[in-house]
């Protein structure tokens, strides 16, 4: 019993992989069919997982639990109401009811974005740049730190948007930006190679699976 299931499963994967690889020859009905099947299954799966995780586990279960505190229950009911408001967005007529809920979501996003940018990136990266200049560290880290500092500064300067009347940036910004260009080019090249490495591994894994299916 177990073997046919495994075999059928592997066959399904094999067929779908071939259908996707058929895109190499160009867009074709088999590819499109596979894509639609995939989009349907993945979206349905994710929607259901989210529904279970958010609505069932975090709303309905505590609400239906008799041990839940009254205050918490009221809060949950209020949250439920808010979520239902947002759900009305599916209707063009009732959609405006959901606007406050969408606004709350945007507000939370704004708060998280701002704190995330400042506390998650700006300050930590500043600290990391400064860390190389720790007096207790050896001299070669200082040299690396200097290069890091120059790279970060010049790359930042590269993106300066303001310009004068002739739509050119000031000469010293241009000079700094051109050194930023060097760092940018090197970084993008390295990221490209790394990305290729990842996609290559995915391709190897897929082809390995196909071979395993044949050798089975």
């Amino acid at each position, binding site marked *: 019993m177990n073997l046919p299931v495994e075999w059928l499963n592997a066959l399904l994967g094999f067929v779908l992989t071939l259908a996707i690889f058929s895109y190499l020859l160009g*867009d074709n009905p088999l590819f*499109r069919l596979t*894509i639609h099947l*995939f*989009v349907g299954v*993945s*979206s349905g799966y*994710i*929607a259901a997982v989210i529904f279970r995780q958010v609505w069932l586990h975090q709303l309905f279960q505590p609400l239906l639990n008799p041990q839940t505190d009254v205050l918490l229950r009221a809060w949950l009911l209020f949250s439920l109401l808010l979520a239902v408001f947002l759900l009305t*967005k599916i209707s*063009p007529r009732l*959609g405006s009811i959901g*606007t406050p809920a*969408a606004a709350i*979501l*945007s507000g*939370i*996003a704004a708060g*998280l*974005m701002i*704190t*995330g*940018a*400042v*506390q*998650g*990136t*700006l*300050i930590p990266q*500043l*600290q990391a*740049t*400064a*860390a190389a*200049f*720790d007096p207790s560290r050896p001299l070669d880290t200082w040299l690396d730190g200097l290069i890091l*500092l120059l790279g*970060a*500064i010049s*790359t*930042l*300067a590269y*993106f*300066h*948007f*303001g*310009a*004068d009347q002739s*739509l*050119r*940036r000031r000469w010293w910004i241009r000079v700094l930006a051109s050194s930023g260009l060097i760092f940018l080019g090197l*970084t*993008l*090249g390295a*990221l*490209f190679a*790394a*990305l290729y490495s*990842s*996609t290559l591994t995915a391709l190897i894994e897929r082809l390995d699976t196909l071979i395993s299916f044949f050798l089975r």
Partner: protein
Amino acid sequence: MILNLISLFIIVFAALLLFTFRLLQRKHAPRFRPIPAFQQFQRALNLSIEEGKQVHLSLGRGHPLMLQGAAGFASLGMLRHVAELTAAGDRPPLVTAGEGALILLAQDTMQSAYRAAMAEELYHPLTARLGGLSPMAYASSLLPAFGEKHTSAHVLMGNFGAEVLLLGEAAQRNHAFFVAASDDLSAQAALFTLAPHPLFGEELFAAGAYLSRDPAHQASLSVQDVLRWLLILALLVSPLFKFLGVF
């Protein structure tokens, strides 16, 4: 605690700066360096309106509650501009996203843009569509759109990962105009090789100021420049902080 205070100071300072710049720039519009991708985008937009064709706008898959959500919000600003321009056109723009919240906000944005263009009756909620809920599902669901003859320009701005390559490659296969920007660095590296006019780094966030010429967005971009130099200054003195033991 001290980091919280520094963060608070930065945020309040930046907010005040934005407010001040917005007031100042009502009189004097700032100038920005030209970015070819935006010029091409504007051109493609005008062309598609002229030809009565559709513009496909992809807002990415930035989760609203992640940092990547910012890219989605930035692309919503751009959507507003495009929707206003194309509201009375022959074909409404096709808007796609890989995240439910983005679709929801895109619908609101489009509706208000149509309202502003006095064409609210032409608005249909399904012009903003969810491609799929996973990145690959999203990207692959868009592939058929790249073969559509009536779509003349594809604008992919927002949070995309490596999957954006699929879309760029599809655009090239179909000889369609496309401009793409992502806040993801891997995607930027990939797009550098594919896009005719690549956009890097924070240029994605400048889309609103460059395209809509909205004073608020221009002020925001100017603030970004001011903050940039303050940050550079902070980077320069950061070794000193290290010596002093602040960090």
